[in-house]
């Protein structure tokens, strides 16, 4: 049995597999279920400072190699978040990452101040959702200036609320010219780490009998196995340039996928769409596969693999 634990921004995870934001994650009990199924930690769905409606259905469709989603970041606001996080803490002691989102800079400051009181282990800032552009415009993750400004705002809001010790990581978009320059800007603005990547695109699927886009939002973020090579490459690029803590996420379905992501430079590995392919216990399956892979090769510490693909270049 290999030691699968990792240290991420000073927080210990018994294994590196975390529930990625946006999948499950609506309720405390559902996140606790993910931990029971084997995850080392969880990320909430994006929390807003106020109620936010999502898109009508269809919101998620899948084909063999990909998933398209335009759920539209629905949330009931801080009161519900407080209750659900408290419930999670009551039944579960695995680290909790609060993902936050807003439509404006002021929204981000407001929700950061709110979540500071909920005492998450880590705050993840979602500035990269590709399925709300009609409402909110281009994601902030597409601008060096905006991604930097929002990072500062969140860090300041947490500090002012007496929660300056909580690490802040920023979830980046792959849909930019140069993801490393965005990563650099948010790290310079005080981010403690990076989550890469959010969904790709947006993309579209058309039903040819109706001659209509299937998603009600017409377009949605692309995830699933098809995007894994992109995610691995961006994690690799960011790690090479910055050597910062990274949550690598995008298309990870197996233990081998997760190890690949760690070798690219990820300390934690986000798993989301794989729930569709392998079921609710995918987290435990991946953890077992990672362990078996390590055992077969006599690797005692999984964390020794972080960034390993860089050693020979």
């Amino acid at each position: 049995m290999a030691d699968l634990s990792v240290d991420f921004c000073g927080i210990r995870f018994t294994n590196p597999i975390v529930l990625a934001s946006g999948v499950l994650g609506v309720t405390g009990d559902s996140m606790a279920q993910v931990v029971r199924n084997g995850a080392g930690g969880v990320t909430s769905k994006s929390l807003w400072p106020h109620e936010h409606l999502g898109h009508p259905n269809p919101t998620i469709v899948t084909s063999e190699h990909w998933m398209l989603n335009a759920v539209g970041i629905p949330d009931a606001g801080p009161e519900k978040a407080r209750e659900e996080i408290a419930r999670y803490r009551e039944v579960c002691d695995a680290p909790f990452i609060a993902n936050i989102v807003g439509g404006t800079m002021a929204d981000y400051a407001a929700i950061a101040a709110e979540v500071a009181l909920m005492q998450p282990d880590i705050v993840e800032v979602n500035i990269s959702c590709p399925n709300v552009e009609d409402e909110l415009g281009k994601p902030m993750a597409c601008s060096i200036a905006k991604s930097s400004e929002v990072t500062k705002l969140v860090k300041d809001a947490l500090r002012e609320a007496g929660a300056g010790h909580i690490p802040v990581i920023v979830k980046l978009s792959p849909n930019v010219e140069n993801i490393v320059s965005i990563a650099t800007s948010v790290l310079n603005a005080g981010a403690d780490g990076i989550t890469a990547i959010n969904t790709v695109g947006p993309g579209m699927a058309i039903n040819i009998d109706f001659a209509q886009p299937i998603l009600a939002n017409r377009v949605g973020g692309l995830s699933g196995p098809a995007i894994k090579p992109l995610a691995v490459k961006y994690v690799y690029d960011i790690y090479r340039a910055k050597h910062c803590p990274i949550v690598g996420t995008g298309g990870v379905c197996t233990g081998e996928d997760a190890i690949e992501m760690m070798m690219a430079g990820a300390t934690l590995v986000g798993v989301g769409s794989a729930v569709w392919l392998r079921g609710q216990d995918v987290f435990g399956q991946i953890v077992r596969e990672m362990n078996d892979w390590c055992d077969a090769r006599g690797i005692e510490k999984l964390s020794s693999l972080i960034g390993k693909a860089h050693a020979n270049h």
Partner: protein
Amino acid sequence: MQIINTLPVAATVKAIVQENEQVKTFVLDLSVGAQPGQFVMVWIPRMDEKPFSVAMDNGKELHLAIADVGPFSHAMHQLKVGDQVGVRGPFGTEFTCEKGQHLAFLGGGYGAAPLYFFAYKAVAMGCTVEFVVGARRKDLLLYTEQARQLKGVNVHVATNDGSEGFEGFNTVLLEKVVMEGGIDCIYTCGPEIMQLKAAELAVREKIDAQISVERYMKCGFGVCGNCCVDGSGVPSCVSGPVMPLAQVLELRDFGKYHRDKLGKKQYYNF
């Protein structure tokens, strides 16, 4: 087995049956291989997509009994024969029984439709079915006549106003049926307060039960998380809608609240 491809396919409305003033059965020209208790997502392009439990899938046609209660179901009710809708599925768990068993069904409102489908399957397996249904009044009863046509099904009707059968709640009628003895399992679909009564009866009489737990579903395959039940935390679209009694008894929300499309608790008013 996991569902890999969840893209909607086009289905044509072959027939529409007006069941009562609120409910129409839509007969679609395809089979999705659904089992009793499972549901499908029905898509009207540029409108929305909603889950509906299956009233019949006979290998050739799919029947959906839909009440005109909201914007989507109202749009469904405007459809005509020859119109098309998109269908994804089937999703979720099914009602199960063993050969030759004596079963008691409790259906309230549109809950009678999936139970009719299950009765159709159960009698083919040599089971005897006590089909207990209820409605506010006689003309709101659903699938009662169809159930009467099935050999091996005994229909027990309760109406609030006594316009047909027993005057009162169908749960009282279920208790009567169960107290006569010999029931192997109770199956229920419909309003949660009614299901709670059935669950309490099953516990008291030490009879097994299967309960269709309805929550706000979006994706249908356990990813979006909106339909997760409290307690076990599992998505009801995958681990449900049909859950065994033991699982239901462990839920923290059953009989108390469900959640809206934002995940906010909505308490039942009994």
